């Protein structure tokens, strides 16, 4: 994977592997409670709603909306050039199921609140196996402000 922007990678463990490697299968996976149906993020050994231990990884829809975002202009890392969009995306699967991510495939100044987005993965090889970072891009199946053909959106 030459020419990838620099990324700090996560330490993959048995607890978070479903999240960081689900992208190999094109799936954004979170823990899900078999007893009450609650989605759980970050991973926890018991469901926070019903305290069941019957929690297991499950593929989410991978679709949601931009809850909030910021255009980062500060060069925090050599090899990761601003500007790029850091966002909190809320998944359609459950109110409050959200994660921090980047919005890609669109010019940073075109990103909007409540914009419909879908997950897209980028594989980063690591010494103990790849991780798949879950980014989000404008959802082509949704109406609303989608910038088609935008250039250079990869942070």
């Amino acid at each position: 994977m030459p020419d990838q922007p620099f990324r700090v990678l996560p330490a993959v463990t048995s607890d978070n592997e479903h999240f960081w490697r689900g992208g190999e299968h094109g799936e954004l996976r979170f823990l899900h409670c078999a007893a009450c149906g609650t989605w759980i993020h970050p991973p926890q050994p018991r469901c926070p709603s019903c305290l069941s231990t019957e929690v297991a990884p499950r593929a989410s829809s991978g679709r949601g909306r931009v809850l909030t975002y910021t255009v980062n202009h500060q060069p925090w890392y050599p090899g990761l050039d601003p500007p790029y969009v850091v966002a909190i995306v809320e998944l359609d699967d459950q109110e409050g199921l959200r994660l921090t991510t980047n919005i890609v495939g669109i010019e940073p100044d075109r990103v909007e609140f409540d914009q419909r987005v879908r997950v897209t993965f980028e594989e980063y090889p690591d010494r103990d196996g790849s991780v798949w970072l879950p980014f989000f891009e404008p959802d082509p199946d949704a109406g609303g402000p989608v910038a088609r053909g935008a250039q250079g959106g990869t942070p």
Partner: protein
Amino acid sequence: MSWTEIGERRAVVSGVGQSQIGRRIYRDPLGLTLDACLAAVEHAGLQLSDIDGLATYPGNMNIPPGFSGVGIAEVHDALRLELNWFAGGLELPGQLGAVANAVAAVATGLCNHVLCFRTVWEASAQGDAGRASVTMGGGGGGGGGGGYRATSFMQWSLPFGAPSAANWIGMMANLHFHRYGTTREQLAWIALNSRRNAEINPTAIYRTPMTMDDYLGVRMISDPLCLYDCDVPADGSTAVIVSRGDAAADLRRPPVRIEALGTALRGRPSWDQFDDLTTMALRDAAAMMWERTDLTPEQVHVAELYDGFSFITLSWLEALGFCARGEGGPFVDGGTRIAREAAGVPGSVALNTHGGQLSAGRLHGFGFLHEACLQLWGEAGERQVRIDGGDPSVGIAAAGGGPLAAAFLLRTD
């Protein structure tokens, strides 16, 4: 929630002290700390042998560089204290959580006089590399590089190029702007008010006047936060002494009484999972503080509110009820309701009278409590707030942002 016991009223602040404060003064952090501690003991009219408690935030650690460098053990040993109680650490309701610990310790009778300190030497430690040097895991080059792998809560933000609270608070500020129509021209007044106060604070770091054009023209860090929305790394140490009220009756100055404390965190303890990203834990800490008193925001003369980023101060103003939720922008707009001269004027409060961390330097939370006490004692020099020709008698010191917050309601009347 209703409370049956307000134990913090058994505690007072009996003295405060500060070391030299500056940019890159290249002094040993323990030396700075001892200067501040000895100044506070002298200020209170105590002897070192009276000090039987010691508290600090965050303990001895140096990630990021210069974040502390001094813990309980270093100060304990350097001053050969004989302690009945001590506590230092990071997992607290913000920086002033260390002082809340001390309040609890004296209120339960575990000790009489707790020396509380916070030391930073980030300006020197970061040196000429600038603030970007504090980011974890920067390995250079492309791809997944460097030896560092993100763990714990940082794994959810670092891979996305969001290592800084500037990014996390930037998202909160942007949501506030979107939801309530807040503007950069309004937020600017937090920074402009602080600079105006810093101009007459001899220990402040930035004392030259700042204009709206200066603010709007400076580079963006993480939209909508520009460079002047971010506090300035500094070297310096602040100490405050928390005493048992009935052990402080005969000290040098009338004690600053602790009317109420707020230390609550009722939402999820997370920067991105908290239910309301525009209020964060400030909402809970402020609510708890007001639950524990009959005083109201209208009675507060001075408010010294954390400004690691300007937006945090705006959010504190709302959380503490100086204006309604979402009304922070109009409240600070023009600066008249938050100026020094506004103290005692209905609907107003004197804000960050020393210049805050934005202009006076990032002393990390303790500077706000130090300033609130100086104001209540009438010892703030040229920047002293006056109420009908007298000193202010009710003040708030609050620190923290994101999921970390504590608020102190102080009074001398």
